[in-house]
């Protein structure tokens, strides 16, 4: 079996690919979703072992632990008390020292402040005298500046009025010109649009006409082709029909040539003969269809004639060959 499969490596390859795809799909898509947290056997065994301690032993151990803890707590408290006493004494000493120092510092500070106050008062007196002088000069200069400004402002306002009037005139002129231009443009655009529409309509009409013409031509051509095909098929059919008639006729004639009129003058009607033939015109079976009023000897003579006619003639076209042939045997023609 393997040797035959090795002769078809394509099949093996396809099969491999198929399996790879299926496994790939399983790995990518079918990984088991939402599975609860896994507990693996080893892990679990450990936890279980831990729980398996004797309960009495567990209590003893628990008690011992508690006693130990109490003892430790008492010790710790004692230590804390001692430490606190020591710390208090240290604190008191430090407080005394600090107070003495503060007193010294306050004395120094008071002296310094008195000195500073004296200095400040002298400076203030001098500053006030200066300020008065400066204010006088400043007031005079201000008056002069205001008069100047008033003069200048009057001249400027006159010039401004003239300029504004001029600008307004200019703007108006520009507006009128613009409106005119716009109207002109709109008219031109309208004309252009109309021309374009007319052109498009014309084109559309032409295109539709061409389409109609083309369709009509196609229709015509199709009809012609159909007609020709039909005629050809008919022609072919006619040819086959005539060939078939000729084929049946040839068989009938050959059979009738081989027929010998049986002795006696019985009734010899027309007989329908069914012949089953094999390749090469070999006769496989002979049967009779409508054959009213015939005698056995008559039918035997016909059957004999058919077998003598073997091999039966070939048809003009191999397509016409049929396994079963039936024809009308007419004793009066020989």
């Amino acid at each position, binding site marked *: 079996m393997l040797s035959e499969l090795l002769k078809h490596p394509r099949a093996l390859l*396809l099969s491999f690919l198929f399996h790879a795809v299926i496994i790939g799909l399983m790995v990518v898509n079918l990984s088991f979703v939402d599975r609860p947290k896994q507990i693996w056997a080893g892990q679990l065994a450990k936890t*279980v072992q831990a729980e398996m301690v004797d309960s009495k032993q567990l209590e003893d151990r628990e008690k011992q632990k508690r006693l130990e803890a109490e003892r430790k707590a008492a010790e710790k408290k004692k230590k804390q008390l001692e430490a606190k006493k020591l710390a208090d004494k240290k604190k008191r000493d430090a407080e005394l020292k600090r107070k003495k120092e503060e007193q010294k510092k306050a004395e120094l500070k008071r002296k310094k402040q008195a000195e500073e106050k004296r200095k400040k008062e002298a400076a203030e007196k001098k500053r006030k005298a200066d300020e008065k002088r400066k204010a006088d000069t400043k007031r005079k200069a201000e008056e002069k500046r205001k008069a100047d400004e008033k003069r200048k402002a009057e001249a400027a306002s006159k010039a401004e009025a003239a300029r504004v009037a001029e600008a307004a005139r200019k703007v108006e002129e520009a507006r009128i010109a613009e409106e005119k231009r716009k109207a002109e443009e709109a008219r031109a655009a309208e004309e252009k649009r109309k021309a374009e529409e007319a052109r498009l309509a014309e084109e559309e009409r032409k295109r539709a006409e061409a389409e109609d013409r083309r369709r009509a031509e196609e229709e015509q051509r199709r009809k012609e082709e159909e007609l020709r095909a039909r005629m050809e098929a008919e022609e072919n059919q006619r040819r086959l029909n005539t060939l078939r008639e000729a084929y049946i006729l040839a068989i009938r004639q050959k059979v009738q040539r081989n027929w010998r009129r049986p002795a006696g003058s019985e009734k010899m009607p027309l007989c329908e003969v069914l012949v089953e033939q094999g*390749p090469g015109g070999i006769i496989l079976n002979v049967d009779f269809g409508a054959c009213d009023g015939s005698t056995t000897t008559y039918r035997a003579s016909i059957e004999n004639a058919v077998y003598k006619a073997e091999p039966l003639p070939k048809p003009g076209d191999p397509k016409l060959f049929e396994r079963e042939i039936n024809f009308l045997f007419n004793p009066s023609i020989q």
Partner: protein
Amino acid sequence: MNDDSLLTLIANASVPVQLVMLLLLGASVLSWALMYVKHGYIRQSQAEARNFEGRFWSGLNLSDLFSQLSQRQERRFGLEAIFENGFREFARARKAELENSEAVRSAHRAMKVAMAREIEILENNLPFLATVGSVSPYVGLFGTVWGIMESFRALAGVQQATLAMVAPGISEALIATAMGLLAAIPAVVAYNKFSSDIDIMIVRYENFLEEFTGILQRQSHTPR
């Protein structure tokens, strides 16, 4: 261990279970390849039989048909082979001036032999599919049983057993059964289809053989 894809499950399985899975995978690959080959061959034979019957009954002269066939280079199979063997034997017997009935009988015999050969080629390898179809579920079951056995044995040293302890092991082991079924189902379907197709082909060959013998019998009565 939190990654619970199929692959990790397989990788975690014990060695015998893994071996079983590998075996089943191999069987599946081989059976699919075989199905492909067989399907192609049966299709080809059916087409050939149809084609040849059409030609045989088209009224062509038998000796013309025979010479056409013997001119072809490639190997002949199916109805062509049966026809060729029978006709060659018949011609040889007539040349040897054997009696007519003897000639027909020897041709018949030759055709029987050719037909047996054709049927053998058609049925070749089909038992493999049948074997895969019937055995691989058992093989898969074996893997599963083994895996379950091991996961129960792991429970032996534990006093408080929970379902969670055995479940992963059983799940691993069940993959083997799934694979066995996956390998078996297509193989069984293919086996049934192929054997019914082949039966139809055999009937067709036998019919042709008998018909052709009849024709030879008739032809033997015409003068040489």
